[in-house]
């Protein structure tokens, strides 16, 4: 076994020991592609094997469906607790799975999966569990944890601290008038109230490539991680006439494709066209993705475009349609959370803006866009983002009694850009 594999296995065993131990709560920090889903599945299997029933709290219906499919595939009898509106997705397992809107309909299931919003309807006097598992515990807010916490005597929280922070439609100043911060992450609030809780970082990203993992780790994470793949394990084979940005990214993992500096509206047509051209080339040219399982042609499902706003998504999709390209994922950062592709083309959140804003500077947004790929990531942007960062006034309000964020959005943006400087390609 590789040393990365050994470190990963050691971390998994440590998690298992802790779960079987006496800690009231255990937090697992999982960087992008560190095997979080596998971990949850593996732990569920082991817990069921020792006779436990395992309730799992996830954050979205898509996550719940994916997890149920994986658990059923692993042979576990799984219950899907869902809302009235839910319909099973395609590929829904025919065996091993029960579904229901009430706990009572899921009798006999060893594992029960539901969203936090759905679990919040379960009453503690109906049933409680000795151990609950919360997946995506950094996407979940303290407000959601408050509504389900009483169901479980102990908790295992698993999540990626580099995700987008919980969001509210309410006015921030009004919420800040509270003596608590209900929009803290579930993992953050638990660690604040139970500082002795062990935090076990998964040390290896199996998704990110050897040359892209260190950049993500340095810019967005306080606990360092490395790539599990060796430099020779994977590569992208391109046709000789590939766009220089694709060629560079195939070799180095990264490319920062810069269009001439300009202040442009957020649906920047030149950026839309560039992204669509790159995608078109990727899916029409003869591109192969190679990894230890062997080479295979790059399919449309292997490519994603990450954008910041929904109107950007609409424009990129329309541009792809005009080029006759379908089947390529185009989505915003918050919808790409937890997903993975071979190649990702990312719209830099600050591209072409005159002024940065807190929304566009959020570390999680850039981190999600830049950490969905296995082979390569091309960040496309207008030049001048550095200027924009430097022009951003350091005037954020400071709320007395709160700690500065562990990862500051402005600094993460700057660090990321600095690390990408050697990969800068100027668009023709």
């Amino acid at each position, binding site marked *: 076994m590789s040393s990365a594999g050994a470190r990963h296995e050691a971390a998994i065993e440590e998690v298992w020991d802790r779960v079987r131990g006496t800690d009231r709560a255990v937090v697992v920090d999982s960087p992008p592609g560190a095997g979080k889903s596998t971990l949850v599945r593996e732990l569920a299997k082991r817990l069921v094997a020792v006779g436990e029933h395992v309730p799992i709290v996830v954050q979205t219906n898509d996550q719940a469906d994916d997890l149920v499919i994986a658990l059923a595939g692993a042979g576990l009898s799984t219950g899907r607790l869902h809302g009235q509106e839910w319909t099973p997705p395609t590929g829904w397992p025919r065996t091993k799975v029960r579904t229901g809107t009430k706990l009572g309909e899921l009798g006999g299931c060893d594992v029960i999966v539901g969203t936090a919003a759905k679990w919040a309807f379960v009453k503690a006097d109906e049933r409680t569990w000795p151990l609950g598992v919360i997946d995506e515990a950094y996407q979940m807010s303290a407000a959601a944890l408050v509504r389900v916490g009483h169901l479980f005597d102990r908790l295992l929280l698993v999540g990626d601290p580099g995700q987008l922070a919980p969001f509210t439609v309410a006015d921030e100043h009004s919420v800040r008038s509270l003596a608590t911060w209900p929009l803290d992450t579930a993992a953050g609030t638990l660690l604040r109230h139970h500082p002795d809780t062990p935090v076990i970082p998964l040390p290896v990203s199996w998704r990110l490539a050897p040359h892209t993992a260190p950049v993500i780790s340095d810019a967005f994470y306080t606990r360092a991680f490395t790539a599990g793949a060796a430099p020779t394990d994977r590569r992208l084979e391109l046709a000789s006439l590939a766009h220089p940005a694709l060629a560079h990214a195939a070799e180095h993992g990264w490319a920062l494709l810069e269009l001439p500096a300009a202040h442009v509206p957020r*649906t920047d047509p030149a950026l839309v066209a560039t992204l669509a051209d790159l995608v078109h080339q990727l899916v029409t040219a003869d591109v192969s993705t190679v990894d230890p399982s062997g080479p295979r042609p790059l399919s449309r499902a292997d490519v994603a475009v990450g954008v910041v706003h929904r109107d950007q998504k609409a424009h990129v999709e329309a541009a792809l349609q005009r080029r006759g390209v379908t089947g390529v994922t185009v989505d915003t950062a918050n919808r790409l959370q937890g997903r993975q592709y071979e190649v990702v083309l990312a719209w830099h959140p600050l591209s072409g803006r005159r002024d940065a804003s807190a929304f566009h500077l959020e570390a999680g947004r850039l981190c999600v866009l830049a950490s969905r790929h296995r082979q390569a990531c091309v960040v496309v942007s207008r030049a001048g983002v550095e*200027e924009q960062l430097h022009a951003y006034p350091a005037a954020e309000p400071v709320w007395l009694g709160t700690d500065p964020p562990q990862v500051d959005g402005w600094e993460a943006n700057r660090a990321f850009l600095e690390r990408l400087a050697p990969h800068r390609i100027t668009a023709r």
Partner: protein
Amino acid sequence: MDPRRIAGLLDAPGCRRRQALDAAQVDLGLLAEAIGAPPGGQSPYARERDGTFTHLATARLPELVGRHLGIDCEAAVETSELPVGAGLWVWREPKLRLRDLPVTPERIVLAGDGTLLHPVEIRSYACLDGHADPAKVAGTARELAVVVAALRQAAPVPERVSSRCLLVLPRNFGLAPVGTLLDVAPQVRRLGWSLDRLDAVDLPARLRLPDLGGQALVNALAAVDARFGDGCPSCPMYTHCRQDAERTGTVARAGGAAANLCGPVGTAVHALALAHGERSPSGEAEQAIADELARAAAAYGWAVGGSGVATGPGPAGGSAR
């Protein structure tokens, strides 16, 4: 310059005019007079309150420092250099530097635990139930960052100056001091970046003249580009720059959101001509702006045109519980 003035570098790092103003250390009193701005300053009542509270809080510092920093100390001791060891010190009128800029606060209070020195800052805005005006706290944090950075420059071992400061405020409606720890590490880092950039500010020769005042000062500053935006009302040049912006009809006069949406389109007249189809867009970027504004114009026209378009059969209220 006092720390507040240097902290101003973080207010508008994107505005060259503001950067020039600070890099040239222009006297703000002279400037206000030259551009005809209100003199500003502090209310006599605020000054009195400040003095009273500082006096009261100073007497209680050993207790607060003990509670929040775990440092056992007596009343503050006068010092004339960066102290070492454990204790509480007042350093009056220190002559510090940050890069080349003089930093001359009236006084710095420092609490040492033997290893680290923590700045202690007394301010007289209220802390109500543990909550203080976040904009004021942010301002204090930026000024403290200047002090921390200047002390680090003066210290033989810079890491010994901690960015964790003790902020002392009056509690609720009284004058009883209450302490809160405030970590200004992010502000210190940002300040470092801003100072790196300041070195690159290209000062017009005329601004380097000492005691430049009146119209000559205004002209020298006006020769440097300004960047009008949401943060401008707190800038000493505000009244001057906004008149400029009004004369030219720049979209930025209406705020950052307008400037961001309009991108390369500089004036409101131009943007509206695009919105109303009275001018054909030059290039793709303008086309995109024209599309977006035209959609807004159409929606606005629809709404004020008052066509009785139905949004549904009757009121859509009611509970769907």
